[in-house]
Each structure stands twice: as structure tokens, then as C-alpha cells.
């Protein structure tokens, strides 16, 4: 066995262990020098990304992998913690690593004057660990543990600017909302354990009968994970915390939010995969009911997100509401794909939804970084106080334009590719939904045109005459995201064929996920 094979075999564990170990090494490393600490965080995330990349190349070519903690083989009864990595999980892990590396590069300049940065990087690595854990785990209780770790660590990060009362308020709201949500998730896990005496996702999916208690568990999981993902009308914590956390942190919290979204996908498609076609009363199958519930909530999210974004004056908060709308698009896509399960456009909708996870991360992330750059140079939050920044911040303006067009779904940027798939497939389910989705996109464009006009165009205010361009590492981070946005926009099929289609088929093919564990027993 070569070293590469050994690394590959243990990479699911190493992906979790490397950031976790470096998180706890950081307080010691930062005693040497601040520069060493910054480089150490980036290098360790780089090493983790290497493992993720290695695992991704294997999973995409050879199918799912399982990793058993503490033993060589599976035994009955299955009490071991398993990691089960399929194309969907590794796709999410790649997104998480991308966001984490860009956030670390960005925070080099953005936060270099602040103190408490050793704890900042420790918590950042903990959130990355928990997001990766949620995405790779094959054990539902382990999912809950990582969910709680992400709650605790991201709450502490939201309160990073502890001298501002609003940051504390946002952090308190976040921890209340997410701990109540996580406790309900634990309650649902208890319901599963009571009935099937199993915590492994594959075993649960194999045994699930869709009894009355399973219905309760499904509702609880949908609503509490939906709240963590920012689904309206439980989205109110999201603009609060996105608007008050440092923008580099928003990327990290976003990876945790997207991991909760992944949790919904995993619950609906895998855990309830066997029973989705069961008929309920009025001869309606389960998947139609769940799909339409998700679509209804998604439409509410899109509308509330864009309409509320239109009246915001705080730039970061405005982008927070736009993020709610983008999450609505993701839910619209997966709702359509669940409601129309079995048809050809359901697959297209799922492709659109899965691709939109990546596009949402890139677009909203880019906009937050630009907003952070504006905050860094002007120290002003409100759009009313800034004007004419394009004269001095040329690169930032270009990046903002790219982010604007991408998030509004304008061709030829990446936001259009996924929204195109979503519109086309949703139209076949119900044309009205498609029209509402298009209307949301247009309003989103209007929202960001307002930001463009207010912040970058307009007369140059005297107190902003000597602002400078953002520092280089911030420009590099923004440039990376803008580059991704353009590349995905120009070569949509490249990514769709290599990553998105395997991920979507891994979600649809729950039988393979189950047989990986059940077959090994």
C-alpha cells in the first residue's frame, strides 16, 4: 500500500482531524508571531483542501466511500460512528474549503488591526471542521453534534466586534434560534432511535416505515434545519447576524448555513428516500406534499428577501436579505425536484439547485467581501453616508459589478446558469412559480443597482475624497471569487458534468447510499 493509498483511505478522518488539531494548536502557534499564525491557518486549510481534493477525485471515479472510526470492519450491532462520503457530500466539502480559504486570505488585511485574532482563527477552523463534519458524516447523531459545534463557534464569531451592542444582539439571537433548532433536531433523532434502534443514516433509511412518528420527525427536521438554513419566515436571524458579523466571517457562517441546507437534502432524499412515493390520504404521494411545502416556503423566502432588501440602508444587512432570496431559489429548485420526482425536469431542477448552492456561495460571498472592503476604507455602514467611491476604488467597483450581475442572474455570469436551469424546470411544474422566480431576480437586480448608484456612482463627498483602494489580500480574495463567477458563467458544462451531475445522481440514488452500509454488514 503506497502512502497515497493510505492517505486516501484515511482522508475522511484526516479532513476532520486536520482543521480540528490546527484549531487547538493555533493559540500556541500565535504566541510565536502573528504572521506565523496567519500563515499556519492558511497552510492547514490548504492541507485539508488537498485531502478533500484527493477524496473528491476518488469518490467521483469510484463511487461512495465509508470510513469507520475505531475499527477495521463493520459489525452487528452497528454502534460505530461512520463517515459516508458520496459525491454530494464531497461537493459541499469543496464549497466549504473554497469559502474558508478565501475568508482567511481576506481576513489577513481586513482584521490586522484587531486583537483576539488567535481565538478568531481557532473558532474559524472549528466552524470549518463542523461544516465538513456535517457534510461527510454518515451518522445522524454525529450530524447533530457538528451542528451544535457550528452553532457555538459561529455565535462566538458573530460577536467578534464585541464593543458594538448590535453585534452582541445578533449573536444572542443567533444562539437562541440555533440552539432551539438544534434541540428539536435532537428530539427528532430521539424519535428515530426509539423506533428503529439505529442512528446510522443508511440503516435508518433502510428501516424507515413512515409511521406517524416519522411524520413528526420529518416536520421537525425540515423546519429546524430550514431555520438554520435561513428559510422564510424563520429567516429573521440571518440578516441580523450576516449584517453584524465581520464580512470574512459571513463566508464561514454561510458554509455552516449551506451545510444545514445539505442536511435537508440528505434527510429528504436519503433518509426518507424509500418512502417518498408512499401514498397518503387523497392518494397524494408523500413527495408531492413535501415538495409543495418547500416550494411555498421558498416563494415566501424569495419575495420577502427581495422586498425587504429594497428598503435597507445598511449595506451588509441588505446583502443579508439578498442571501435569504438566494436560499429561496435553492429551496424552490429542490422543492420542484421533489414534487415532480421521477420526471425528467425533476433532475434538471435538482441540477439547478445543487449548482445554485455553489453559485450562492460565490455571489453572496463576493458581495459581502465588497461590502467589507467599503466598510474597511470608509468605516461607514449606511448607504446614505457614502457616494462616489468608484473614483478611488476601481477594482472594488469592477468586482461589485460582477457580483451584482451574478447575483441577479444576468448572463453570462454564473448566477444565470443555475437560475436558467431552475426557471426552465420550474416552468414545467407550474408557470406561475417561474414568473415569480423571474420577478424576484429582476427585483434583486433593482436592489443592487440601487447599491451601485448609492455607493459607487454619484457625487464625490468631501469626507470620502481621500479613500484608498482596499489592501491587496482583500483584492485577491475578491478577485478569486470574481474569477470563479466568470469561469462558471463561461464554462457551465465543465462544472455541471464533473461535479454537479454526480452529486445530483448521488442524491437521487439513495439505494446505493444504503447498500454501502447494509451490504457491508
Amino acid at each position, binding site marked *: 500500500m503506497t502512502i497515497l493509498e493510505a492517505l486516501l483511505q484515511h482522508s475522511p478522518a484526516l479532513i476532520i482531524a486536520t482543521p480540528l488539531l490546527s484549531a487547538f494548536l493555533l493559540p500556541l502557534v500565535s504566541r510565536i508571531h502573528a504572521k506565523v499564525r496567519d500563515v499556519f491557518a492558511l497552510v492547514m486549510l490548504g492541507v485539508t483542501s488537498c485531502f478533500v481534493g484527493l477524496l473528491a477525485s476518488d469518490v467521483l471515479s469510484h463511487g461512495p466511500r465509508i470510513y469507520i472510526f475505531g475499527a477495521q470492519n463493520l459489525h452487528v450491532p452497528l454502534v460505530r460512528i461512520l463517515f459516508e462520503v458520496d459525491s454530494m457530500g464531497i461537493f459541499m466539502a469543496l464549497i466549504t474549503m473554497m469559502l474558508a480559504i478565501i475568508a482567511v486570505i481576506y481576513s489577513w488585511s481586513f482584521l490586522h488591526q484587531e486583537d483576539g485574532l488567535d481565538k478568531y482563527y481557532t473558532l474559524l477552523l472549528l466552524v470549518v471542521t463542523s461544516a465538513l463534519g456535517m457534510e461527510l458524516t454518515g451518522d445522524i447523531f454525529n450530524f447533530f*453534534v457538528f451542528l*451544535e459545534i457550528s452553532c457555538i463557534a459561529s455565535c*462566538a464569531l458573530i460577536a467578534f466586534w464585541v464593543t458594538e451592542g*448590535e453585534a*452582541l444582539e445578533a449573536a*444572542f439571537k443567533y*444562539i437562541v434560534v440555533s440552539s432551539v433548532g438544534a434541540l428539536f433536531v435532537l428530539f427528532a433523532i*430521539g424519535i428515530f432511535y*426509539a423506533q428503529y434502534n439505529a442512528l446510522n443514516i443508511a440503516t435508518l433509511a433502510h428501516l424507515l416505515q413512515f409511521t406517524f412518528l416519522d411524520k413528526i420527525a420529518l416536520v421537525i427536521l425540515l423546519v429546524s434545519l430550514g431555520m438554520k438554513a435561513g428559510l422564510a419566515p424563520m429567516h429573521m436571524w440571518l440578516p441580523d447576524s450576516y449584517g453584524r458579523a465581520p464580512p470574512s466571517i459571513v463566508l464561514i457562517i454561510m458554509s455552516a448555513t449551506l451545510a444545514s441546507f445539505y442536511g435537508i437534502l440528505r434527510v429528504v432524499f436519503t433518509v426518507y428516500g424509500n418512502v417518498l412515493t408512499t401514498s397518503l390520504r387523497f392518494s397524494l404521494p408523500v413527495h408531492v406534499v413535501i415538495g409543495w411545502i418547500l416550494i411555498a416556503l421558498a416563494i415566501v423566502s424569495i419575495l420577502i428577501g427581495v422586498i425587504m432588501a429594497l428598503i*435597507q440602508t445598511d449595506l451588509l444587512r441588505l446583502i443579508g436579505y439578498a442571501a435569504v432570496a438566494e436560499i429561496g431559489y435553492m429551496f424552490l429548485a429542490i422543492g420542484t425536484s421533489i414534487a415532480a420526482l421521477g420526471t425528467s425536469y425533476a433532475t434538471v431542477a435538482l441540477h439547478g439547485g445543487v449548482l445554485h448552492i455553489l453559485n450562492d456561495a460565490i455571489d453572496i460571498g463576493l458581495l459581502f467581501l465588497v461590502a467589507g472592503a467599503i466598510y474597511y476604507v470608509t468605516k461607514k455602514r449606511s448607504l446614505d453616508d457614502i457616494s462616489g467611491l468608484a473614483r478611488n476604488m476601481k477594482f472594488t467597483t469592477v468586482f461589485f459589478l460582477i457580483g451584482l450581475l451574478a447575483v441577479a442572474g444576468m448572463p453570462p455570469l454564473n448566477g444565470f446558469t443555475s437560475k436558467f436551469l431552475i426557471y426552465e424546470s420550474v416552468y414545467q411544474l407550474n408557470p406561475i412559480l417561474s414568473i415569480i422566480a423571474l420577478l424576484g431576480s429582476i427585483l434583486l437586480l433593482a436592489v443592487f443597482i440601487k447599491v451601485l448608484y448609492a455607493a459607487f456612482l454619484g457625487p464625490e463627498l468631501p469626507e470620502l475624497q481621500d479613500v484608498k483602494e482596499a489592501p491587496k489580500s482583500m483584492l485577491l480574495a475578491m478577485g478569486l471569487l470574481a474569477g470563479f463567477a466568470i469561469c462558471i458563467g463561461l464554462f457551465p458544462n465543465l462544472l455541471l458534468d464533473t461535479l454537479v451531475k454526480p452529486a445530483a445522481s448521488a442524491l437521487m440514488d439513495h439505494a446505493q447510499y444504503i447498500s454501502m452500509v447494509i451490504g457491508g454488514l
Partner: protein
Amino acid sequence: MIEYLPFIAVVAMILIGLYAVVFRRNLIKMVIGISIIESGVNLFLIMLGYREGGVAPIFTSLPSGTTYPGEMVLPVPQALTLTSIVIGVAVLALMLSLVMHIYRKYGTLDVQKIRRLKE
């Protein structure tokens, strides 16, 4: 009926906790409410592993005459509860420290007045 009593207690505790979080205005009381929800969920998990007349699942101190493992209560829910308690302690500490800082900044613990972030 008597065997359902703990589950009724679980639901009651979760509802009491939710009541405290939703209708109490003091931040400390909201934190207490979340702790009550957590206790309810922990009680639920513990109940799942209970076997009537079972002994504690300690490998080396089984009373003589009992056989392994048929007469033990299930250890897995207890491990889950323990994990949940540990997480609960961390969440509680974090929430209380946030409440302290919020009191310092806002001068009040009334949740109706701590809403600078709205709309």
C-alpha cells in the same frame, strides 16, 4: 398508562421551555427556558434506553446472577444524553456571557428593548 408518564413529562417540559422563550421578556428567563427544553430532550433520550428492572450498563459490576447484556439498560442513549449535556453546558455559558455583555451595552434585560436590529 404509567409507562407513558415520562413522555408526557417530556412534552410538558418542551412546551414549558418554549413558553418561557416566547412569552418571557427577561433574557435570563429565556436562557432558563432553553435549558428546560434541553432537559426535556435529554429526559426523552434517557427514557428510550430504559428497560424495566434493568441494571446500570457497567461491564464489570454486574450483580451476580444477571446475564450480559439482556438485563442492562441501553447505554447508547446515555452516551447521547451525556454528549448533549456537554454541548448544553457550552451553549449555556456562551448565552450567559452574551447576556452579560448585552446588559452592559443596553442597560436592560428586557427582550422588547433589545431590538436595535429590526426590519
